[in-house]
């Protein structure tokens, strides 16, 4: 039994010989750090593709494909986070934990240095109207990560557990958690988790969704992109203009738009000016395209296209892919129904 094999020892330098405050502080630090890892892993598990894209942007896919790197990193994060939460603080947990923290700091530190040197990150520039939308400046990201993770890590080392038998039960639990996470991450793109994994779900007021920071003057909200959503019924499609998933349905969307029945149609894209030009002259859309910054749209989908139905400023339905146009065209807008009833 685990309880019998992990009896506290009282030799100098062992956990039992440490002052109580040190042990408690160490446990708190380890649990805090473990929780940080697991919270970070949660979002990545539901949307591994976004994590893989981030890995590509960071240039970390030089040995393995980005998705493989993403899954390995996710497994490591979940395993270490789970182990710290379950009070496994052996050297073979704390050393890789330290390495992972150092790696995160390296990434934010590198971004900080690049920013200070005027080297822009390779990200989607969009239409260019919105500038560079950042929630946290690279400096803020670096110092916040440093302030959150390093003290927690140092505290975790205070409660470093030197010896005794391996905590097999807890390790088994962590292994099961990691395996389950990997399975969910692997299957996640096919699972109907969009409402769970993104900020867009029924009940949300889309116009209040924002990106960027008011402090650095880069804040942009959806009300600058499609203020029309405040009233009436609208169906909104978020899409990549170069994708076939949208391209092959342009005819149907044109027809819906000019059919005059059903909710108003809007297509949001973070495409560049060049991509919009090419789309206009190769596909001939007659519905309205609205350019939105990538940073504003990215938290709203896992895969594109994704669509949603808005009634009087509130999301009432979300759709994976394009919306059911025929069904929407046949539906009577709520306002019309109310007017008729009145």
């Amino acid at each position: 039994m685990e309880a019998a094999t992990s009896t506290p020892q009282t030799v100098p330098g062992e956990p039992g010989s440490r002052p109580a405050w040190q042990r408690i502080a160490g446990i708190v630090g380890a649990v805090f750090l473990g929780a940080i890892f697991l919270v970070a892993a949660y979002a990545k598990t539901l949307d591994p593709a976004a994590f893989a894209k981030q890995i590509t942007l960071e240039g970390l896919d030089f040995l393995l494909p980005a998705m493989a790197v993403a899954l390995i990193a996710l497994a490591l994060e979940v395993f270490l986070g789970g182990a710290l939460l379950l009070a496994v603080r052996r050297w073979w947990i704390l050393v890789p934990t330290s390495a992972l923290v150092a790696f995160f700091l390296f990434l934010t530190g590198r971004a900080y240095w690049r920013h200070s040197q005027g080297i822009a990150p390779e990200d989607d520039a969009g239409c260019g109207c919105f500038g560079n939308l950042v929630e946290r400046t690279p400096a803020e990201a670096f110092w916040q990560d440093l302030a959150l993770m390093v003290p927690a890590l140092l505290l975790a080392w205070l409660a470093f557990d030197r010896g005794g038998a391996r905590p097999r039960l807890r390790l088994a639990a962590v292994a099961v958690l990691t395996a389950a996470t990997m399975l969910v991450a692997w299957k996640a793109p096919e699972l109907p988790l969009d409402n769970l994994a993104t900020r867009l779900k029924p009940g949300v007021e889309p116009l209040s969704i924002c990106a960027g920071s008011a402090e650095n003057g880069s804040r942009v909200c959806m009300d600058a992109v499609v203020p029309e959503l405040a009233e009436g019924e609208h169906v909104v499609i978020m899409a990549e203009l170069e994708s076939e998933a949208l391209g092959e349905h342009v005819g149907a969307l044109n027809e819906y738009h000019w059919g005059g029945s059903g909710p108003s149609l809007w297509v949001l894209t973070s495409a560049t000016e060049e991509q919009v030009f090419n789309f206009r002259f190769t596909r001939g859309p007659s519905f309205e395209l609205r350019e939105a910054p990538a940073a504003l749209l990215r938290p709203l989908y896992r895969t594109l296209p994704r669509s949603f139905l808005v009634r009087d400023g509130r999301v009432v339905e979300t759709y994976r892919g394009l919306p059911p146009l025929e069904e929407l065209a046949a539906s009577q807008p709520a306002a019309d129904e109310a007017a008729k009833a009145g």
Partner: protein
Amino acid sequence: MNRHQATMRPAAGRGNLTTGLLAAMALAMGASSAAAQVPADAVFSGFKPSGDFFFELGGETLENAEIFLSDKAAAYLVIAPELASPVLISPRTQSVETVSFMKVAKREDGTIDLLADASFNRLGSFKLQQQEVVFQVKGKTAKLKRKPPLLGQHPADTLRSYKPEYGRNADAYKPIEKAVASLRKQSKDVRVLVYFGTWCPVCGRQVPKIIKVADQLEGSKVGFEYYGLPQPMTDDPKTKEDDVHGVPTAIVYVGGKEIGRLTGGDLNSPEKAIYQMING
């Protein structure tokens, strides 16, 4: 008078060389009565002046070329004195066609319809080359090219003429009367400096609202200036000087001192936002 007589008339001169030519040709060929009786084409109608492009033929820019866009047809119509017939560019079919002047009717609001009985003569198809639409017109290379951005400080009239969409959207905007009336009563000098990009679609929707508000505040203590930026906007040092991160951005000065900025959703109702900013 039938429905079409009420809403449509043949292309009539409105002070422009091209439309003057169009009107003269149409009238000379008796298009007046035809246009009055034949309805507009169901798809190729509602062509609005577009300020996104300019037209080049045989390497020369046709200064008097007018370019129209139909949202419904997603097609462009080019009319120029140098062209024997208007040219229709249809992305959906990737084709370039000519259409007779007699089958072109101009509405009072400046939009253009092709008549339902218009016939099209195919010139060929177009190619996209480095963000240009390229095709052949009688052995000459024709290009629909993107207009360069309007840079630096300009009065609102220049914005209106450079991008007809600005004028159209300004005309369509209805400011909140109460807010405009309150702003007219301002006793202090207020200056609003608007940074914009003619390449930026958001500016195309929001700057016209400011232009309309400025029109209504003409003669008051509230003045407006417009400054066009390149793309990327950081190429202009003024963005660094004034710490501008995105467009449109309207900086509000009272007595020469900046009191705040309007960006994003603030500009959905600029008169209200300016009023609130000035009055705390």
